[in-house]
């Protein structure tokens, strides 16, 4: 099995730790992972801003970088959802489709493809899990409070394999953090308020760390935590799963 590692642009630039943990974790689980050096971005920031018609270059590049792999894995629900739903290329529509279907979000790749049942990780801390909307509602990584359906959580089941972790319950299980891509600047007031409220729920339950499958939501909450002078840290789920502290 040949796996291509897809690292979203802002993770590459600002959160290399999350990317390194993803790579190391996959390697630890015996996966043959390659990071194609010429990758940039999935095009989502443009598309969600209404400029999907400008994403042709990004799409072409994505297909060029990744179409030869059996699986493409990324530590981000949001970017994966974008590729799955919106990767197109008029010149090679089938290849685009095929590539889009190979993209997996990290935790669902671990549970559904690798069928991981145990992990050698330790993380003795109180951790709040933020359900990022695109992963949860878009990729169905976990059950949603709105639906009348059985309860499950792919990232949750992995976190439960981590020794010493103390997972907290939140008052609002799956409320959006308000990041929303360019929404966070075009709708600054509402976005920041949503972020503050989301962070407050975690603080209220004494979290030491806030984790999730999407670094972008975590980056948003980190910005708010720092501004408030809080000691609570954000950490990508890959870093917890890869942690042997």
């Amino acid at each position, binding site marked *: 099995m040949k796996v291509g590692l897809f690292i979203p642009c802002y993770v590459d630039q600002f959160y290399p730790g999350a990317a390194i943990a993803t790579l190391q974790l996959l390697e630890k689980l015996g996966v043959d992972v390659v990071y194609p050096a*010429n990758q*940039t971005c999935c095009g*989502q920031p443009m598309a969600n801003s209404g400029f999907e018609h400008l994403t042709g*270059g990004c799409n072409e590049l994505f297909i060029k970088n990744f179409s030869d792999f059996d699986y493409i894995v990324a530590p981000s629900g949001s970017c994966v959802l974008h590729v799955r739903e919106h990767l197109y290329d008029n010149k090679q529509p089938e290849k685009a489709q095929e590539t889009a279907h190979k993209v997996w979000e990290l935790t669902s790749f671990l549970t559904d493809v690798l069928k991981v049942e145990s992990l050698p990780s330790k993380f003795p801390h109180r951790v709040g899990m933020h359900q990022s909307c695109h992963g949860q509602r878009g990729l169905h990584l976990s059950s949603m409070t709105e639906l009348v359906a059985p309860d499950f959580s792919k990232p949750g089941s992995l976190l439960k394999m981590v020794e010493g972790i103390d997972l907290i319950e939140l008052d609002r299980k799956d409320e959006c953090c308000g990041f929303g891509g*360019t929404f966070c600047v075009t709708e600054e007031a509402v976005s920041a308020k949503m972020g503050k409220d989301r962070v407050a729920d975690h603080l209220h339950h004494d979290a030491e760390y806030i984790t999730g499958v999407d670094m972008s939501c975590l980056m948003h909450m980190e910005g708010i935590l720092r501004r408030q002078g809080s000691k609570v840290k954000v950490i990508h789920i890959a870093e917890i799963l890869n942690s042997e502290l």
Partner: protein
Amino acid sequence: MEQATKDHAELAEIFNRDEERVDWHDETLWWIRQKRDKITHQLPEWESLRDMASQIKFNVLSNLSTYLQQFEKQALAHGIQVHWAADAKEHNEIVHRILTENQVKQMVKSKSMLTEECHLNEYLATHGIEVIDSDLGERIVQLAGEPPSHIVLPCIHKKKEEIGDLFHMYLGTPSNMADPQFLTETARGSLRETFLTRKVALTGVNFAIAETGEFVVCTNEGNADMGAHLADVHIASMGIEKLLPERKHLSVFLRLLTRSATGQPITTYSSHFSKPRPGQTMHLVLVDNGRSVQLGRKDFRNSLKCIRCGACMNTCPVYRRSGGHSYHTAVAGPIGSILAPNLDMKKYADLPFASTLCGSCSNVCPVKIDIHDQLYKWRQVLMKEGYGPAGKKLAMQAMAFTLSSPTLYHGAGKMGRLTLKYMPFAVNNKLNPWYKQRDMPEPPKQSFGEWYAENRKKK
């Protein structure tokens, strides 16, 4: 009233200046959303009901003209006078004509978002006709001179103390009286007077049945019935999409509507009107007002399935924190943001962007409208048609150019870690609104790409 000059972000910013109020608004609506969750979880068949409702509505939309004709035929046969209105203006003129024919200067009206959409009250006011809204929430916003901020809970943005002040001013209650029970009684008393003296009553329509030609009006206060039963003339205004093929289909929708709206098992009053009682005249106005245009837009057609339960507003984390008036259109929230650009792309180009696309709206929608996907699709249409801010297009073009080239990206990335210039979240970098309430991420020494080149390639 409406502030068409300000967009959603600006109006939301104003609303957010009073954070305590935002918290209160958010918690009030969240409480209703939780009630909805509880009661839907009592029905194991909930998801299949939603499926069924969605499919029934799909059938209606696919055969709308047939059902409309069938409905009209049945209604006429029962002595209902049927009128057709192409747009808001025609609707208002028809209602005005009926009022003039009956020499009436005052009308009692029960809740109808369609008349809000058509701005009927304002129109009639300019012709010297007074409309009294009989739904308690609507009456309150009417006294306050505001439009409803929510389609099911029109005055959800008002605290009871503010309502007490309004009643003190207009209905003569003692000052500083905020007891809900007392205020409701007062409003009832004053409305009873209205019901007894108005000759014409207007109601909305929740469902109309093609098979029988009857229509159904749902209220929790019974005010539609009071108005319609006491008046000599009953006018009912309905959007053409409100049809259901057969009477049996109603059962599906009545189970879904109020569970979704307020978390009640069923609406207190679901009244069927099938013919005028002896001596009464009954008019039914069928209104298009952009609906057939929307029906023709493949990507947005599904929005016409909406039964106006308001669940998408209650669950929307943006609506809860920006208030209904920030949407500057009659139907606020996620569904309103899909319906409004159909009426005027320029005026409402901001609304599909008033969402994080979290998807909660699509999940609660009892008729399974793909709300957040439609918001995404509207964004594409609006920007392609040139309704976006000029600077945004240039920024997006620059970003698309950079991200299409690994060399440019890597160069810009290095710069970007210093200036954040090309990062997605800072792309509309005016004075960087990110920084107002949030700190920047600390730029690492190395990108992952650089780390990988150093640590893995050599192996």
